[in-house]
């Protein structure tokens, strides 16, 4: 997959960085390359355009990150049964355009597609993390505020990350993506310390809502290939949209997945329901006025201020897909994202582990 850019803006202080040079040498010749004094300004929304968020996706800003690279998952909350996921921020925003994406609201004030030239500084933070709790394992991902692989042919960052993590016993890298950009991964040796995960949706959701992403079949095929190359793989059924045919479609998706990727070799599958704040929903509806999936799941407002499919509908879909998965893969590690402990108990019949315990299990999976 190749994503189109209108411009690459490089912060002056990053002009001679390896990342900037890699991008400049690989970017298509028709793409404007400019040097700017402050990447933070360049990442702000363009004024006078109809869709500043969408425009941000076409403007790559190579810049220095001034804040820590490592943070807790922004979705984490004591209200939810969390998975202990840690986020490594090496980029922000994504060239794909899913109608339901939370980034539309979360980074509305700086939608430029930022890539951090000083990402190697993150390795110090990761070293400190690894030393901080001997005996505990951590799963660290780059796919929360960006797609981990979308621009990997331009940046080549994945190779450095895979090599770093290959030498760390208690750190697992998760590269989360909706692309099939795995070329660089196939040339590196992960030594079991990198997991590549794909967000998967049924074809109906992909066609309606996941613009410029790889098709579900391409994602599954890419997973098969990285598995053969020595990577671990995981899958996120997230967001699951409870439209009337969802049960059938997600079940079929699971069958398609397990037909290509042996279920016993899948590290985990997560499930999460579509959740949107009313503000995000309004934004999404404005940007994608013809996407029926944005109104298909009978979403109602919950106590945490987010709209989700009403509870019995959502729980029933989770339980049904859980059963479908476990019929073919009884041992597979499953968990829910952004759901309460009681939801977890209803779907799995047991109370969830603590975030630290689940995090360690996932990191060792």
């Amino acid at each position, binding site marked *: 997959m190749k994503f189109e850019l209108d411009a690459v803006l490089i912060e002056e202080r990053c002009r001679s960085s390896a990342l900037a040079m890699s991008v400049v040498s690989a970017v298509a010749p028709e793409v404007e390359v400019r040097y700017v004094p402050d990447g933070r300004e360049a990442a702000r929304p363009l004024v006078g355009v109809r869709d500043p968020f969408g425009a941000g996706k076409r403007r790559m800003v190579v810049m220095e990150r001034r804040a820590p690279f490592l943070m807790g998952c922004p979705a984490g909350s004591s209200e939810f049964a969390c998975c202990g996921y840690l986020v490594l921020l090496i980029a922000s925003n994504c060239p794909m355009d899913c109608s339901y994406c939370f980034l539309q609201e979360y980074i509305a004030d700086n939608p430029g597609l930022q890539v951090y030239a000083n990402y190697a500084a993150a390795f110090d933070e990761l070293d400190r993390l690894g030393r901080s709790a001997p005996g505990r394992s951590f799963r660290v991902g780059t796919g929360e505020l960006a797609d981990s692989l979308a621009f990997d042919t331009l940046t080549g960052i994945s190779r450095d990350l895979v090599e770093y993590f290959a030498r760390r016993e208690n750190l697992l890298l998760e590269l989360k993506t909706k692309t099939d950009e795995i070329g660089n991964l196939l040339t590196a040796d992960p030594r079991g310390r990198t997991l590549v995960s794909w967000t998967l949706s049924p074809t109906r959701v992909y066609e309606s809502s996941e613009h410029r992403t790889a098709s579900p079949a391409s994602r599954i095929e890419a997973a098969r290939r990285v598995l053969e190359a020595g990577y671990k793989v995981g899958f996120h059924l997230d967001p699951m949209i409870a439209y009337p045919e969802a049960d059938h479609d997600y079940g079929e998706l699971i069958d398609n997945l397990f037909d290509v990727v042996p279920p016993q070799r899948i590290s985990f599958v997560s499930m999460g329901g579509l959740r949107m704040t009313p503000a995000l929903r309004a934004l999404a509806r404005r940007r994608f006025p013809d*996407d029926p999936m944005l*109104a298909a799941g*009978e979403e*109602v407002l919950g*106590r945490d201020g987010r709209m989700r499919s*009403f*509870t019995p*509908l959502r*729980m029933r*879909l989770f339980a049904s897909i859980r059963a479908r998965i476990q019929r073919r893969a009884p041992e597979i590690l499953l968990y829910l994202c952004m759901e309460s402990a009681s939801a977890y108990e209803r779907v799995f019949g047991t109370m969830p582990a603590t975030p630290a315990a689940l995090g360690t299990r996932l990191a060792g999976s």
Partner: protein
Amino acid sequence: MSAGIVESRIRSWAEKRRLPKAHLGRWLALAHEDRVALLETAERLRLRTGQFVTALELLDEIALRDRESIAGVLARNEIRRILEGTGSAPGRAQSLVEQLRVACFPRLKRTIDRLRTEIAALALPPGIRVVLPVDLSSDELRIEIRASGGAELERLIGAIDRHAAGLRRIAEMLGGADEV
């Protein structure tokens, strides 16, 4: 009706009802036939401002999900029956909003109806109220007891105890243990 006349009538209705600008803007941004259908509905049923805003929200959701125009939704039999009915305008306005809500949340409506049937079948004594979460947005079931004096309280607690299995079934249904 020409576009100019429609717009002028919409603006006049909005001014009379103090419709917030944002909602007026959304109304005016609709396709001509949708604008007209909504105007005729608002005028015929003398919708209050809140009812209009709710109706517009629901119509917008239904139209998007079912890939139908707002005029098309308003022309559905069950809606037309309300619009062309003989009851009072305020009563029909309320029915319209309720019917749109059913059309927007059909599975939610079915589930709530089933839960209410289950609750009614328990025939709990007065003084015990089983409260479902608003819009079934959580899985929490609330049971309220209102008693005057220890003896009544004890009697009501006993009734809850006798109906524990039925209440438990309702709590399970809230968690999805039933066809939706």
